């Protein structure tokens, strides 16, 4: 009897896992919200839009190779595009919505390859139209060939702001300033990691050269402290911040812009893993709450695996190897996973993964956010965008002794809106840690729906028996 596998997410980890599982004879269903596979990093444009590219050739080569390989096995895969998984239950059921109907799958094994989303530190005016996440702006450029602003300021930490700045410049956009919390030279401490990731470092240096050649003003140690504009962004005020999160008075710089692209790291899309019953742990630099997994991506729930950034932010190169390894493990009955055969078969993938993980140590050094930085969040700043909850209200709840995400949610409604806390819970957790000295130990209770779905679609539900 052929083993059935469902992969949720068609980014590098999901695609690699699907390819490996098909190779090992599984019946594979892969589910993704986008029209085409690729996830975020390998987001594909519509064929009519392809042409000039702004990413580094080496990255594009990796993208096209993997997509071609995936395309090669696509006749053997049940690909569900524009489909949203809204629940995974401890009994192994996957509930998804596609079109105007829903479906329940019950495969032998599930691989969650749901990746990460972006996080920012909120500031007054950050909800003004024209303030976007940097990766989101990059997606619009990558997939839709639009620079989402004529005069762009980019701010954040880590490598992404630099990459986005360079890509926008290559696309003919104007970058008025690039503000980073600290210089990327923090990576230099991780010499071994840099050596292992030297191809990526080379790509990074070329991006840096693009930015340098365009003479983009570089503001190191600066954060946005106010976005100006009501119906649309008109300008941003940036200021220098010290390690204690105090704004250095007199350092404010106002820069006109119509797009502010920001990124301060990433949060794992781990809601489905938690809902499925996986044991979770918290690691702020690795994506917040992430499932506890072993080297084969196994969670504490038999039959539920996690691959890629969803198991801890590690980048695209790790994600692909990880997908191969997890896909192999999920493809076989659980009793066979721990034997020496699988380890031998995956030796190469594991070695590559280990090498890429060394480089990720260097990257993670640039994503460390001192908790003190959250001091910059003022009482008037909106923290939960969906429900318009300001920090002052959250602070009131904290002072009232409500320290868990659930209790704060019950108190002031943060996390109860359309996005289910995706834009705010990392902020609430950080602000709680700053105020009380301890981060919340528990996630908000994971519950359906991970995506909103209408009653009508739910009533049109198809149940698919895997066996």
């Amino acid at each position: 009897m052929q083993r059935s596998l469902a992969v949720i997410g068609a980014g590098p980890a999901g695609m690699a896992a699907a390819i490996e599982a098909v190779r090992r004879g599984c019946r594979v269903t892969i589910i993704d919200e986008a029209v085409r596979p690729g996830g975020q990093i390998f987001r594909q444009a519509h064929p009519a839009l392809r042409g000039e590219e702004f990413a580094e050739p080496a990255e594009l080569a990796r993208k096209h190779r993997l997509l071609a390989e995936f395309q090669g096995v696509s006749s053997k895969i049940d690909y569900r595009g524009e489909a949203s998984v809204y629940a995974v239950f401890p009994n192994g059921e996957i509930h998804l919505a596609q079109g105007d109907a829903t479906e329940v799958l019950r495969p032998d094994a599930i691989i969650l390859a749901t990746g990460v989303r972006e996080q920012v530190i909120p500031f007054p005016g950050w909800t003004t139209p024209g303030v976007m996440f940097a990766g989101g702006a990059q997606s619009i450029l990558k997939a839709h060939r639009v620079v989402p602003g004529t005069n762009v300021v980019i701010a954040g930490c880590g490598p992404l702001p630099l990459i986005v700045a360079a890509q926008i410049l290559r696309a003919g956009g104007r970058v008025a300033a690039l503000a980073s919390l600290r210089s990327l030279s923090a990576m230099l401490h991780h010499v071994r990691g840099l050596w292992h990731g030297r191809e990526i470092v080379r790509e990074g240096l070329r991006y840096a050269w693009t930015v340098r050649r365009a003479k983009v003003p570089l503001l190191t140690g600066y954060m946005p402290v106010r976005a100006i504009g009501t119906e649309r962004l008109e300008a941003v005020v940036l200021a220098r911040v010290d390690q204690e999160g105090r704004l250095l008075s007199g350092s404010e710089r106002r820069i006109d812009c119509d797009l502010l692209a920001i990124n301060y790291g990433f949060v794992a899309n781990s809601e489905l893993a938690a809902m499925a019953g996986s044991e979770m742990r918290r690691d702020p630099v690795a994506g917040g709450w992430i499932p506890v997994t072993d080297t084969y991506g196994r969670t504490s729930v038999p039959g539920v695996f996690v691959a890629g950034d969803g198991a801890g932010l590690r980048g695209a190169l790790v994600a692909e190897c990880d997908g191969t390894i997890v896909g192999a493990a999920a493809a076989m009955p659980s009793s066979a996973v721990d034997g020496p055969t699988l380890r031998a078969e995956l030796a190469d993938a594991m070695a590559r993964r280990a090498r890429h993980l060394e480089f990720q140590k260097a990257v993670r050094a640039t994503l460390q956010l001192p908790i003190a930085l959250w001091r910059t969040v003022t009482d008037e700043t909106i923290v939960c965008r969906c429900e318009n909850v300001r920090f002052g209200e959250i602070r009131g709840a904290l002072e009232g002794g409500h320290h868990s995400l659930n209790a704060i949610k019950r108190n002031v409604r943060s996390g109860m809106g359309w996005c289910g806390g995706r834009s705010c819970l990392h902020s609430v957790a950080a602000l709680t840690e700053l105020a009380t000295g301890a981060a919340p130990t528990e996630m908000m209770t994971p519950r359906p729906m991970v995506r909103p779905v209408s009653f009508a679609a739910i009533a049109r539900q198809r149940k698919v028996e895997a066996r």
Partner: protein
Amino acid sequence: MKNGKFDVLIIGAGAYGLSCAWWMAKRRSGARILVVDEGEFASGASGRNGAGFRMQWGLDLNIRLCQESTQFFENAAEHLDYPRGIELKQDGYLVLAHSEKAMTTLRGSLEIQHRYGVPSELFSAEDCIRMVPALGRNRLVGGTFCGKDGTISPFLLLDSLLKACRRENVDVRYGTRVEKLERFGGGFNVRFRDGVIEADKILLCTDWAVPELLASLGISLPVKSLPKEAIVTVPCAPRVKPILISLEHHISVNQVSRGSIIFVVSRAREGQEIASTPDFLAFAAPKVIDLLPGVADVPVLRTWGGVSSLTPDMQPILGETEIEGLYVAVSSFRGLMTSPAVGRIMSALILENDTNDPVLTQLTPRRFQTGNLIMEPLLNQE
């Protein structure tokens, strides 16, 4: 926990626990009252319900408990010195009948309600649809409506009670679990993780979890847990003004001021899990669409669950157990809406041994021995 002696220990800081504590503190100033709860503020059933109160019941005891409680809610800001108020909304409850049999039950209950002066009225199917155009006509026979029924914010009620209790020097502690309960002298010894206290009297307000604590003292009561699940939609334009109860669908509907519509969909279940079950949505969606076709395309945003208490006659249990000084107050899924009256009655019983209220005779724990059980007809439960 410093070792201490208390006049009354209340276990459970939900609506019943806090209401009883406050009433006791008001009744006897200087009373040493401790309320403990193993969870966080509002983490139990009082924080997980439809937030409604109705006087539309079929038995006099339920009508009276809710009538008194409604009057309390109408003046809660004043009674509890809570200027913010508890978000009282009195847009009424519309109870729907989708069969002649249900309609007959409604008519009978209406008569009893009128005897107590409840301002409820009989509605034809057309009346119902005029009030809530989103309602489905399918099998709808009619209903009853009472404009004084409504909703409050359970969260604000609990907050106002908590603050009022603390003002009266009631000691309220969360995250505090009873580890051992035993009789000692004429009262009780209660052990917690970090200390022991003595209490002359104990009131159990842990609802469906009451049997667990009773068992440790060697007695029992027929209280079962009843898990219930609810659906919350995205905020949408106003379309359901009163609370709706459909006796046939076992659904209650509450569109809150934020715009989200909350559907509590009951079904016969066992267990104590508040987790959302895999088959709930598929079970509930067709019923919701049948009841309110107008919401078919509204997205579901969230589901949640809570646990209620179930007794053999679906009535609360109020009174002293066979162990002297040990009292129980079990809500039978109408805790929030009876909490003010129950607080008053239990405080009189516990502090003054006042057994005059007829409700105490009807709801005594001892009724299960005599078998004198009367069912409430207007139940929204399978």
